[in-house]
């Protein structure tokens, strides 16, 4: 089950080498994204996740907010 985390844990995990992934569509990612975040829109996850992400490393996904 994916673990829910908050801001401070994001920073710690990224510092430890986690992959940060934004799953929002293009305009949202291009305008603003977290530093170092990879862009993998939700609709493309199935097709591209295995190529774009390292399964051996932690992955943190985010979108806009909890809504």
């Amino acid at each position, binding site marked *: 089950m*994916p673990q829910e985390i908050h801001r401070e844990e*994001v920073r710690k995990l990224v510092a430890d080498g986690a992959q940060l*992934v934004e799953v929002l569509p293009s305009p949202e990612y291009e305008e603003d*994204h977290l530093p170092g975040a990879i862009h993998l829109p939700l609709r493309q996850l199935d097709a591209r*996740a295995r190529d774009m992400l390292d399964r051996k490393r932690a992955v943190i996904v985010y979108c806009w907010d909890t809504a």
Partner: protein
Amino acid sequence: MSPRAAWRLETLGFGNVYDYVDGKNDWMAAGLPTEGTNAQRPRAGDIARKDVPTCGLTEKVGDVSARARAQGWDAVVVVNDERIVFGLLHSKELAADPRELIENAMRPGPSTFRPFVSLHEMLHFMVDHKLESAPITTSDGRLVGMLRQEDVVAAMKKAS
């Protein structure tokens, strides 16, 4: 979206998946840096005046008013030790009975705005609503500074 992405990644064989549930909105509302086309444009938090005078609930209007005047301000933000915003005092409130407690004189629970809001949008609103200044806070309610309309205009002229 992110919960669905997180669960899907697990079924795709990713064993160590986390969901930053509060998302980009939370990150930006905390005033943290971002990358992207908007990151280059000045935002409310960049222009907000950090030197806006502040005061506590139990101070007296007279003392606070004198302090604000000395600093060249006609607005004061009421905060606690953590800089959490409780209220605002503008000229009208600062002209109240000098013996009055700030807690009773202030405008409680003011509208505040996030550091990442674009200057263009804030200016549009400030002009439409004839608002000379607006407090900028993080999502925790902490004061970042006071955004003044004149500063927004100057910053946008400089950027164009």
